[in-house]
């Protein structure tokens, strides 16, 4: 019993830490694309940790199978949403932030990508 | 206009807060809302309809008329939307 509790607490704290870094990245990073890096996928992995913790807490049953399905759907849907919104930004011609705060992309990338 | 509507909203809120002081306490198990008919539903749901989810029983069995009305309202709303935006012939005149 105690092993299970310790396992649950460890997984949950790991997930919480990842959520924390994702949120911190969402707040601190300089532009939209880099913010998407933080939120779109740190969140997914953190949610996976939480789901594993809950599956361990609940034991082996059909509920755990449902939790596995939630994880699968999350891993399908979350990157898709991230990709869709970043593609919309790319097509709308949002310039990514670069280190020199100037656009250093090669010309044809801008030409093909940003249709502005 | 904005000031007027703000005053109206605040007045309504004040009246409602005055009214809320006579309400039963939040989370009170013996409030009037949960002592008259809902214990009957909770106790007899399994016996009458073999359904553990009491909400479903009340929704479709004990208060079936209500849900029939609601379904009709939803249906009517859909038909109204269709009437408003559906493809139709060009309007005559004007």
């Amino acid at each position, binding site marked *: 019993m105690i092993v299970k509790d310790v396992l649950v607490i460890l997984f949950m704290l790991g997930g919480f830490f990842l959520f924390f870094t994702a949120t911190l990245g969402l707040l601190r990073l300089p532009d939209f694309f880099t913010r998407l890096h933080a939120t779109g996928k740190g969140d997914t992995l953190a949610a996976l940790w939480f789901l594993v913790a809950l599956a361990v807490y609940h034991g082996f049953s059909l509920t755990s199978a449902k939790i596995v399905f939630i994880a699968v759907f999350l891993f399908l849907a979350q990157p898709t949403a991230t990709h869709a919104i970043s593609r919309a930004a790319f097509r709308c011609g949002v310039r990514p932030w670069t280190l020199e705060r100037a656009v250093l992309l090669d010309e044809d990338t801008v030409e093909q990508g940003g249709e502005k | 206009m904005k000031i007027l509507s703000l005053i109206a909203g605040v007045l309504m809120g004040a009246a409602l807060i005055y009214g809320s002081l006579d309400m039963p306490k939040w989370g009170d198990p013996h409030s009037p809302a949960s002592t008259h008919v809902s214990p009957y539903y909770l106790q007899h749901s399994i016996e009458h*309809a*073999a359904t553990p989810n009491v909400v479903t*029983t009340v929704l479709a069995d004990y208060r*079936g008329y209500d849900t029939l009305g609601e379904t009709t309202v939803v249906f009517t709303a859909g038909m109204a939307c269709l009437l408003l935006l559906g493809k139709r012939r060009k309007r005559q005149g004007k």
Partner: protein
Amino acid sequence: MIQESDDVIVKAVARLLVPFIVVYALYVVMHGHYSPGGGFQGGVILAASFVLLGVSHGLEKTRRRMSEKAARVVSSIGVLLYGGIGALCLILGGNYLDYAKLGKILRVTPAEARSLGILGVEIGVALAVMAVMCTVFFAIFTAEESPEDYRSVE
């Protein structure tokens, strides 16, 4: 807005997810007795699957499965199913929507008859809600933006 998306990823993921959403919605409708759910929720999720299909795969592929005409018919069928079950109870000698009388023809105990009656009613509600939501979605997303003959006032 409703034409086919040219994004490979959105199309493929929608393709993979839509059947599961539909089966999940049907599960929600059928298991409203034991877990949260029922006709209203299941109908809305069913409509959401059609919305996803329409947004990702275009109007044509959606119309092949649920056209506007079919949506109209299905919504009427849903309301009629609800009313018809009630009328059937009336014919069998009970009150309107008194499902216990359905046990006479289904040959089960009155409690189980009421359970089955609830299931039938939920299916009717789900059909009606799904079709109405699809109708509203199609109506709003295929509306013409601003044809000239409406601009007579300016």
